């Protein structure tokens, strides 16, 4: 397996998925509506891995569920567009969208322990996708399922086919879920915190596996995470979300080396470091998402921001940049160097 990738070419290629001005509003009639995703735009090009980073509640999972068409229809409004291969996913009918899911776009979830059906054998769960999208019979699909399990690094795959989920460890279950997601060679994989529920050594294995598979098959990936370590290891481009808006975007080298938005800086500073002097206090971002101001007339991050100016609470910061790099801040960190 080689790690070299034709970065510049991939970057300027036609986007596989183009999300434009995605807005998701929760709230039933008679309730105060809550805007979970507030005008998010980003591109994913073939073979590229794009990270969506942010704290809990910043709208990253909702973004992915909205793109997949998996949000409950009742009480939610999804606006904007998500053009995948020339087709707006958000305007597809439910059956059309079902034909895309699993075949063209697949998703991996946070909790591998509960994401498998406990009463069905692994083999049947993996073949189900192939039966559904490739019209194979279960008999035809079984050997393919064994191959898939082998590819995701499950030892003795033929025996595992007959196992029930509870007989596998957490890491094995996540591997099985990855096998299911990749069964029909989707062109886009959305990974929603795929390593959060796993312990550290398994996390590393799963990330290495994802990276390998993505490079091998040329699958584009959207990696949703709060873990900047995952981003550093995997993503080509990073989008930092705050309060439902993208506040900073850049390729991972620039973003980690020269973060501009105070929120990105805060996220980076709050990572515990092994090489930090003993007893050094962590520097978390003060406050919580609950302190957010509405984006309509201010910067949502202003109450927690060390760089906040007067203008930050009176005016909405505009997006300054394009679809490759950009920033939404009145008073960004100075570029050192």
């Amino acid at each position, binding site marked *: 397996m080689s790690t070299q990738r034709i970065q510049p070419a991939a970057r300027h290629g036609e986007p596989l998925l183009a999300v434009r001005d995605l807005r998701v509003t929760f709230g039933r009639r008679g309730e105060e509506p809550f805007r979970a995703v507030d005008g998010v735009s980003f591109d994913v090009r073939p073979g590229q891995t794009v990270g969506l980073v942010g704290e809990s509640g910043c709208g990253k999972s909702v973004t992915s569920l909205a793109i997949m068409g998996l949000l409950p229809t009742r009480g939610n409004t999804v606006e904007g567009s998500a053009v995948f291969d020339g087709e707006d996913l958000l305007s597809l009918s439910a059956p059309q969208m079902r034909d895309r899911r699993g075949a063209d776009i697949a998703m991996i979830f946070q909790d591998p322990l509960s994401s498998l059906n406990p009463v069905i054998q692994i083999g049947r769960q993996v073949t*189900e996708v192939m039966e559904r999208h490739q019209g194979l019979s279960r008999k035809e699909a079984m050997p393919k399922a064994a191959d898939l399990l082998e590819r995701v690094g499950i030892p003795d795959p033929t025996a595992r086919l007959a196992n029930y989920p509870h007989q596998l460890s957490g890491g094995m279950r996540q591997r099985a879920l990855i096998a299911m997601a990749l069964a029909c060679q989707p062109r886009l994989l959305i990974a929603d915190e795929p390593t959060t529920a796993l312990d550290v050594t398994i996390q590393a294995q799963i990330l290495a596996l994802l990276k390998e598979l993505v490079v091998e098959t040329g699958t584009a990936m959207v990696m949703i995470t709060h873990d900047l370590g995952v981003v550093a290891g995997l993503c080509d481009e990073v989008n930092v979300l705050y309060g439902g808006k993208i506040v900073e975007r850049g390729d991972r080298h620039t973003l980690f080396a020269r973060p501009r938005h105070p929120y990105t800086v805060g996220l980076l500073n709050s990572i515990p470091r092994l090489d930090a002097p003993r007893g050094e206090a962590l520097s978390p971002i003060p406050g919580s998402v609950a302190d957010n101001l509405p984006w309509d007339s201010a910067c949502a991050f202003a109450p927690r921001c060390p760089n906040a100016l007067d203008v930050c609470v009176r005016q909405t910061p505009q997006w300054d940049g394009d679809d490759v790099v950009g920033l939404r801040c009145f008073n960004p960190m100075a570029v050192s160097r």
Partner: protein
Amino acid sequence: MTSETPQPPPGRTSYADRRKQRLDALAAASADEEGGVSLILSAWRRLRRNPVFLVGLAITVTFVVLAIIAPWLAPYDPAARPLLDDIRPQSNPVPGPEPGHPLGGDDKGRDLLSRLLVGSQQTLMVGVLATLFGLLGGVTLGTIAGAFAGWTDSLVMRIVDVMLSIPSLLLAFTIAALASSPSQWTLIIAIATVQVPIFARLLRGSMLGQRASDHVLAARSLGVKPHAIVFRHMLPNALGPVIVQATLVLAVAIIDAAALSFLGLGNPDDRRPEWGQMLGAAQPYLGQEPHLAFYPAACIIVVALGFTLMGESLREALDPKTRR
């Protein structure tokens, strides 16, 4: 997960062996903490040692076996009247025990033991069929409500609520009384109908729980079609509490069936004995011959108790809250 440990011949187990087995058992028990199959396995492990369950099981098995072999076991045809000559009006309307008739006869000179034995068949049939039909109806309604959610759910559940608001026995009486001619089948339908809302409510609740579960979301993210989501991913995971309820309903159905036939809403043909109907027929002789009522009543109570004990301990064993 298999928890098979090699069993050395009894009496020759050393301390170390016993310890090893104990540890193996513990490891096996903790290894399959969750999941569908292991849930049943671990429930069975606890049930095996539960005296309440064993008593219930013994009663139930005895009853079912007796009911099945009753036609061959019964010394006389339950409709024949071998003791007719013993009935002397005025002095004794009911023949007492005598050789060959250990429990004596009933008011029409028929062998009481044979009638009790053959009567168990009717009781078993009504109980099982009423529970089965109730289960079918309830599972259908519960699946519809849980699968479609939204206004379908609201509609089905309001109907169910209305049915639940009427006391169950009263509702069963009403349905049985509405039938133009009472028979075994009106009895079964009446009792089954009463059970439908209970099953429906239970299943709907756990279906909605499944609907919101991670594995259903994961299946949806792979484009699995709605009918497969409902029947392959939601229903099998939601059935647990309904199955447990079914064992408890068996007891209720048997008691309800007895009550309805006692009141003459069951099978009117007394050549085919039924415990509730025998109880009803014993009513005029309650003063002089209480045993006529005692035997069928005792049978009903013991059998209902057997099913209840079994169902209750099953429920307890499968309830995640009381586990360990």
